[in-house]
Each structure stands twice: as structure tokens, then as C-alpha cells.
């Protein structure tokens, strides 16, 4: 029963609102960095309403069912992840053992849904974008899982998210240790790639393959993808906060402190996005499998030694 309430109130509704506000922050900060004025506060909501009222076009060459189901699948997995995270953050010890593993799996599904949609739309540029997305997933998953392992090792081999939170409530946030800090650095880059933002936005490169897998999507289907991306912009920093920064406790001042942590993370992601140019896919792969995996392995070794 409590799952249902958290699912409806926090997992779907609040996460969607927060994600859209976060995407407004992202666009506004980008605009300010470029000395522009930027969009009004409600712009992401207006975009979504507009897209839901537009015509939905399905290309003749597309696989209809897959084409229409892919965005729904991605959105539902994001909602599930946010439900699990809120469940852990609001009341400790209420979830099942191993929910961290479930969250890692579910966080991969949005990328897979973009791939499926791209391949199903029957457009060569979409296929190109989807294949790039696939390579990107292959490259960032390894350092991402390794860095998450650091949090698991530090908190005494806990694979329940609430145990990790409990550990951090007692012993301070994991980012405070050297290995935690290294893992946090790795995770930030992986989050950037999972969100598909600028140094790693080659699947959707607007200027070369005209938004890649999303090229054939229009109207409500595109709106669902936009909503999914906006919700990911809330869910992924929240996940990083839960693992490394001690979560978002909702009591008095520390709730406000959690809000500051969250806005800081979003601002960091936006600044990385605005100060970098797009990499080629092979460069990104080398970066993830070389530098970041190396860093993550060092962090794991340090965590084993208790640093």
C-alpha cells in the first residue's frame, strides 16, 4: 500500500514536476552562461502540453508497435527507479534486499528504449544514433557499476539502498573518504553520459544527425521522451545523492541542505555541459574504458583498504 502511495505521489507526480523544474534550471543556466535571457519558468510544462496536443505521425517503414511502446517503456522504468529511491529516502528499511541492483538495471532501460525507438523508426539517421547510443551504453556501464561498487564496499557490503543511507547517517557521507570522492567523480561523468548531455551527446547530435533516434518521433511520443529525459534529470542526481552524499533527509534544515546539494549537482552537470565540446564516439569509449575505469578500479582498491 505504501508502495502505491509513494509510486503515485512521489515517484510519478513529484518527480515529473521536479524534473521539469530541473530542466528549466538547466536551460536558464545555459542561457545565462551565454549572456542570454533564457526561457520563462513554465517553459518545460508548456512544451509538454504542446507536444501532447500535436499530431502523432508514424513512418511507413517503422515497426508500429515497437515504435509506440519504446517511449512508454523508458518512462515507466524511470518512474520505477524514482519510486524505489523515494521509498528508501523517506522511510528506511522498507524495501527489499538487493534493490540497488534493480535500480542499476532499471536505469539502463531508458537508454535501451531510445535504442529500440531509433531502430524501430526505420530512418537511417535514427539507426546511426541508436548504434552510437549502444556503444555509449557499453562504454559507461562498466565504470558506473564499478563506482557504485565503491559505495557498496564502503557501507559494509550493503546492497540495499536504505542500508547505504543508514551507514551514511551514522558515519558521514561516502564522498568524505578518498575512494568515495574518486567514485563520485567517475559517477558524475557517467551521469552526464546517461543524460545524453554535451560532452557525450553524440547519439542525439542535433547538428550532425538531427537528434538521432528521436528524429521520427512527433507529438505525444516525443513528449513522453522529453518527460523521460526531464525525469532522468531529477532521478540521476538524486541517485548520486543517495549513494555518495547521504541522501535527502526531509526534516527541517537538512531538507533545505538536501535541496542545496541537489541544485549544486544540477548546476555542476550544466556547467560541464556548457564548457565542453562534443566528443567522437571512439574518444568517449577510450575515455570511459581507459581513464574512468582506471579511476574506478583505484577507488575500489582504496575502498578495500578502508581509505
Amino acid at each position, binding site marked *: 500500500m505504501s508502495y502505491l502511495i509513494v509510486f503515485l505521489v512521489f515517484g510519478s507526480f513529484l518527480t515529473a514536476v521536479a524534473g521539469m523544474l530541473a530542466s528549466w534550471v538547466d*536551460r536558464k543556466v545555459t*542561457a545565462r552562461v*551565454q*549572456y*542570454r*535571457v*533564457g*526561457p*520563462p519558468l513554465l*517553459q518545460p510544462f*508548456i*512544451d509538454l*502540453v*504542446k507536444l501532447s*496536443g*500535436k*499530431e*502523432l*505521425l508514424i513512418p511507413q517503414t517503422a515497426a508500429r508497435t515497437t515504435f509506440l511502446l519504446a517511449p512508454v517503456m523508458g518512462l515507466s522504468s524511470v518512474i520505477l527507479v524514482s519510486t524505489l529511491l523515494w521509498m528508501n529516502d523517506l522511510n528506511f528499511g522498507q524495501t527489499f534486499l538487493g534493490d540497488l541492483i534493480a535500480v542499476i538495471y532499471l536505469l539502463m532501460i531508458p537508454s535501451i528504449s531510445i535504442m529500440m525507438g531509433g531502430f524501430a523508426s526505420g530512418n537511417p539517421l535514427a539507426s546511426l544514433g541508436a548504434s552510437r547510443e549502444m556503444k555509449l551504453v557499453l562504454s559507461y556501464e562498466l565504470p558506473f557499476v564499478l563506482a557504485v561498487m565503491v559505495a557498496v564496499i564502503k557501507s559494509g557490503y550493503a546492497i540495499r539502498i536504505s542500508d547505504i543511507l543508514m551507514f551514511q547517517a551514522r558515519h558521514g557521507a561516502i564522498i568524505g573518504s578518498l575512494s568515495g570522492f574518486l567514485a563520485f567523480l567517475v559517477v558524475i561523468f557517467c551521469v552526464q553520459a546517461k543524460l545524453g548531455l554535451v560532452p557525450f551527446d553524440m547519439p542525439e547530435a*542535433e*547538428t550532425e544527425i*538531427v*537528434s538521432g533516434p*528521436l*528524429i*521520427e*518521433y*512527433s*507529438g505525444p511520443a*516525443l513528449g513522453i521522451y522529453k518527460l523521460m529525459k526531464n525525469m532522468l534529470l531529477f532521478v540521476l542526481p538524486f541517485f548520486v545523492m543517495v549513494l555518495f552524499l547521504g541522501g535527502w533527509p526531509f526534516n527541517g534544515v537538512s531538507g533545505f541542505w538536501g535541496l542545496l546539494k541537489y541544485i549544486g549537482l544540477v548546476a555542476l552537470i550544466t556547467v560541464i555541459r556548457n564548457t565542453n565540446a562534443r566528443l567522437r564516439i571512439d574518444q568517449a569509449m577510450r575515455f570511459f574504458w581507459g581513464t574512468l575505469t582506471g579511476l574506478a578500479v583505484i577507488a575500489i582498491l582504496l575502498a578495500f583498504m578502508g581509505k
Partner: protein
Amino acid sequence: MQALLKSPWIFHMSTGSCNNCDIEFLDCLTPRFDVERFGMLLAGSIKHADILLVTGAATRQCIPKIKRVYEQMPKPCFVVAIGECSLSRGLYIQSYNCPMPVDKIIPVDVYIPGCPPKPEAIIAGIMKLIDKAEEQMKQNG
């Protein structure tokens, strides 16, 4: 529909222009003019767009393509013709290669004259389009 006027995404199509109007239009996206204030974004794909900006004199090669692009745009949508060429073929009015102006091919909602029009003129034209659509909505209830 009300939401569409507050977040019009723009697709830009050149039908054989000299690139001058295109450059002037791209100026609108720069910090000095910043059309993101009005929620406008440059869409990469026609399937995401709400407003089709047409520049150029619609050459014979381009005419079927203009029709195809217009048909691929999800409705409701608007078309804006930019520059003297797309309004009346301008300099090329006698040319064998430009049989008809753009508004004989697809329905055009707003015409922005100039060779090329200033970015201010382009923004003003799109604002007029939005005002016109709002009035139409009021009349229709």
C-alpha cells in the same frame, strides 16, 4: 493550441536561397536577439517543428520537396515565408527556374519582406503570427 503559441519550435528550410536570409535568421538565435525568451527552439527534425520558415525562391527542384516537408510537419502548424525571394521571387521573377512563389505551393501564414530582412523584423513577424493566431482562437471561441 494556446501552448503551441508559447513554445513554437522552428524548422528552417532553404528552397534555393542565396543564404543571406538564412544567416539573418540564425542571428535570431544568438545572445543579442535570443528567441528562447519566447520559448522558440530550433528543431533539428521537421517532425518536432511547429513553424516552418521558408527562405528562397522555390526552384523547380525544390517544389516537390517543399510539399513533402510541409506534409511531414505534424499539424497544427504554421508557415512563415522570409525574404523577398520566397514572397514574390524577387530578382528571379523572370527566371525559367522559379515558376511560382512559395504561397502558390503551400499555405503561408506570415510574410516577412526584406532582402534580407533584419533579425528584428523576423522576430516581429513571428510575434505578429502569434497575435493573429490568438485573435483567431478568440473568434472561434
